[in-house]
């Protein structure tokens, strides 16, 4: 049985916060560079160049990539052979508070969705817990900006829905996101489970490396078809038109009820920011 001190978790989460907010993910950078090479519109190429230059400046000047440093979402996988010496939620929360100060993130959280008083600490954190069969803890942090979160959606399709209906449901969300969610997007799609399970999967899948296709044939086909068709919508970088509306589309599925077919679409912007560590 391994013992992990809460201080170790706090320090790890603090480092993840700074990493995610300031350093562009390498696979996102590669996808943006590829988009720049293939983008057909002049405006589009110019925007993509500035996005890449922004990534360089953020890293060099130690400043957040985007001023919307997002809401912290943590997926915490706890090994069955690990003991945390103290409160896990408290340790993670302290880590976000510390990382927010260290990286100069924006305090973007209000304590009540209607009363809207800023908590001043950039917390609380949305935490999802899971288990793993070893003596480690995996911490996966996503900083989710709300320009794109606001354009995400869940659609409850009929269980008899055809492939085209599923595809069109996702395309419609991308179309409605349009220029407002900072294209080019990374699109997470969760299909199956319950409404909330589908939504959780659509966000979880944003951690996975861009450019890798699903292993199940119909899902891989869906990813490729969505990428192709989304890039004909003429939304383009910043919504000025162009062929780079999405950098990637990633699908995750789960068994579901005989009467349902939940389809969740989590729109993520070109500043898709995450970092992970295993303790």
């Amino acid at each position, binding site marked *: 049985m391994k013992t992990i001190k809460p201080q170790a978790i706090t320090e790890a989460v603090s480092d993840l916060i700074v990493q995610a907010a300031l350093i562009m993910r390498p696979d996102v950078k590669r996808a943006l560079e590829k988009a720049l090479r293939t983008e057909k519109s002049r*405006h589009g190429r110019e*925007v993509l160049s*500035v*996005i890449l*230059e*922004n*990534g360089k*400046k*953020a890293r060099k*000047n*130690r*400043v*957040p*990539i*985007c*001023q*919307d*440093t997002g809401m912290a979402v943590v997926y915490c996988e706890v090994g069955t052979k690990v003991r945390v010496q103290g409160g896990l939620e408290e340790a993670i929360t302290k880590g976000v508070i510390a990382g927010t100060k260290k990286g*100069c*993130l*924006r*305090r*973007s959280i209000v304590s009540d969705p209607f009363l*809207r008083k*800023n908590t001043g600490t950039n917390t609380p954190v949305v935490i999802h817990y899971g288990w793993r069969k070893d003596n480690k803890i995996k911490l996966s942090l996503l900083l989710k900006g709300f*320009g794109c979160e*606001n354009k995400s959606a869940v659609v409850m399709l009929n269980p008899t829905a055809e492939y085209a209906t599923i595809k069109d449901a996702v395309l419609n969300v991308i179309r409605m996101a*349009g*220029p*407002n*969610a*900072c294209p080019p997007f990374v699109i997470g799609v969760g299909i199956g489970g319950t409404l909330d399970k589908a939504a959780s999967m659509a966000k979880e899948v944003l951690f996975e490396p861009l450019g890798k296709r699903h292993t199940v044939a119909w899902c891989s086909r869906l990813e490729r078809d969505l990428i192709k068709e989304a890039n004909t919508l*003429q*939304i*383009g970088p*910043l*919504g*000025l*038109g162009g062929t780079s509306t999405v950098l990637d589309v990633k699908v995750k599925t789960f068994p579901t009820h005989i009467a349902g077919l939940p389809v969740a679409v989590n729109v993520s*912007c*070109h*500043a898709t920011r995450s970092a992970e560590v295993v303790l």
Partner: protein
Amino acid sequence: MRNNITTPLTSATITRLRAGEEYLLSGEIFTARDQAHKKLAELIQKKKKLPIDLATAIIYYCGPTPEKPSEIIGSCGPTTSSRMDLFTPLLMKHGLRMMIGKGKRSQDVIHAIKQCQGAYAITYGGCGAYLQEKVIAREVIAFPELGPEAIYKLTVRDFPLIIAVDSKGNSCINH
């Protein structure tokens, strides 16, 4: 190809801006986003004095990150303009003519822009580090209790703009 423009922008200059044109703006702009807009609308409705002169101010929809001690401002890219659509026609009725943000605007806002011969420009969304370097001074003007949502006066140099909606109601952004 970018032309330089400097504040205060004359009415004639704003009216002549055309959708799709690119500019480098120097001078003063005022940040204001959701909560500041709500407060400004309340002040207008109560017929109280506003903390900024709408007739000459260019509003920039932005809530920056906190700055390091050595910095003038933190990361400061644009926030989504459409959330301010609800308040914009009222502000334009009381003098506002130009705004900078990202994303599309409602038909009501486009109509208001045409009516007052104004303009709406976009700048690089998600590029807060890039835009940080264009800000050479910052001053709190109103609502400091709102933190990042306060009204700040920013002095900018070569701040990149793309005109998205012009005084004729033309748009180059996917509306």
